[in-house]
């Protein structure tokens, strides 16, 4: 009994380590070597559009609502202490440090990550990747690399847009609706937000999350069992794994940046 369980545990661990190794080799193969600007640039632009621009709507809408909710919740607490002029910094700091990068990453994983996994898994199942390889075109460079870079470039930008829209949403609720002083909303924010400590750290988080999400999404697709169940499993795994990894890394990064 126990021996069986131990054996299972061992097999599971070995499998995970193997998966990690394969994921590493995939990324290595995709990113190593000198990039071919002439062929790579149009591919990157296309992926920036598919991965980044098409995610804009969900990011704008979610950012607006999160900012509005933050202002509403923050106001009810702050007003008890007569500190409602601190609403600006509260909204801005929550968004810049945490919600912007994290919620963007989660939304991005659900919107773009799952799509990337499914797309690549299906390419594998229909032998498009093999076919490309036989045409002497490396699918790692041609398919994986542009998607990876497009994700890594667009996610921090999306997080900044999310944050900016959220701050406007906070203004909408706090100032226009609940009557907090408009000048105070902005000036308190300006006084309390630090470019390096808050803005840069948020961007760094966002870049780390982007690397994680893209790596997992691409690898799950590339490594998918080329059948319909295999692809559906891989897509689910992408969303679950990336979400958990983003939250775990958020804790680690927060502890490193703001703890102690």
């Amino acid at each position, binding site marked *: 009994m126990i021996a069986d369980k131990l054996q299972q545990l061992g097999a599971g661990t070995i499998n995970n380590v193997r998966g990690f190794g394969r994921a590493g080799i995939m990324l290595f193969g995709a990113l190593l070597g000198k990039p071919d600007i002439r*062929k790579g640039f149009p591919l990157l632009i296309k992926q920036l559009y598919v991965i980044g621009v098409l995610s804009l709507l969900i990011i704008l809408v979610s950012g607006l609502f999160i900012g509005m909710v933050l202002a509403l919740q923050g106001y009810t607490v702050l007003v008890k202490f007569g500190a409602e002029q601190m609403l600006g910094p509260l909204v801005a700091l929550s968004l810049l440090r945490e919600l912007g990068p994290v919620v963007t990453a989660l939304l991005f994983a659900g919107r773009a990550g799952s799509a990337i996994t499914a797309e690549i898994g299906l390419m594998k199942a*229909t*032998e*498009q990747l*093999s*076919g490309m*390889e*036989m*045409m*002497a075109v490396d699918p790692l460079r041609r398919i994986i690399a542009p998607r990876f870079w497009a994700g890594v470039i667009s996610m921090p930008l999306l997080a900044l847009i999310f944050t900016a829209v959220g701050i406007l949403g906070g203004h909408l609720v706090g100032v226009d609706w609940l009557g907090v002083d408009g000048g105070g909303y902005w000036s308190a924010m300006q006084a309390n937000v630090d470019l390096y400590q808050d803005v840069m750290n948020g961007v760094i988080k966002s870049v780390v999350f982007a690397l994680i999400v893209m790596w997992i999404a691409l690898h799950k697709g590339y490594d998918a069992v080329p059948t319909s169940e295999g692809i559906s499993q891989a897509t689910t795994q992408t969303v679950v794994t990336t979400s958990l990894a983003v939250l775990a890394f958020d804790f680690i990064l927060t502890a490193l940046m703001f703890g102690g």
Partner: protein
Amino acid sequence: MSDILIDIQQLTFSRGERVIYRDLNMQFVRGKVTAIMGPSGIGKTTLLRLIGGQLKPDSGHILFAGEDIPKLSRSALYAARQRMSMLFQSGALFTDMTVFDNVAFPIREHTRLSESLIRLIVLMKLEAVGLRGARDLMPAELSGGMARRAALARAIALDPELIMYDEPFAGQDPISMGVIVRLIRSLNNALNLTSVVVSHDVTEVMSIADYVYVVAEQTVIGHGTPEQLRAHPSPLVQQFLKGEADGAVPFHYKAAPYEQELMELVG
């Protein structure tokens, strides 16, 4: 230049515990159509992938124009692949591009020709497979037979030396079957290609091949020109050519005796 384009020597390959090939020897002569026949699941697709360098053999040599494919470096392998081309069982067209762009893909990747020249070449290749009118369709809008022909146009886009067809006749109606049979033959002659055709359609293969290998039980069980094969003494070969279920080659995947399994089920 030697007459033999591909020389497979003492090839052994296994998937896990299961040996697919043991000491396989084959030669493909330049400019000829060579066919590989064998029952389903025997490893014909696997053999083409071995030649293309997508799989590595356990031991043995696969010489392509004198170069040992399994031993090539990555860049040398990619250079060798530019000289060969493979028609996949499924066609493997890129689903996000039109037929035109699919055929243009290898040209755009490997040459720096102008768009107008590319257009000329692509239309020429599409004309050869009778799909010039379908250039603006997406792969999803093609029938299975048309997709196979579009993939064929893409496979010959860069005038390869070697073209490998994986089951080109499977799932084709009699008309497109005839078209493909003639295409393989005429392309082979017109472009001076070397063709390898993998199939289990005995009649079609015997009608176009210059030389035939019959594969079963992990190795070559008979080879020769179609005439020689028809007169082949081996009962295995005769059984395969005549398509009999019972004979020297078992039709069933390896399993416990049927009666025994039934008895176990009944308890």
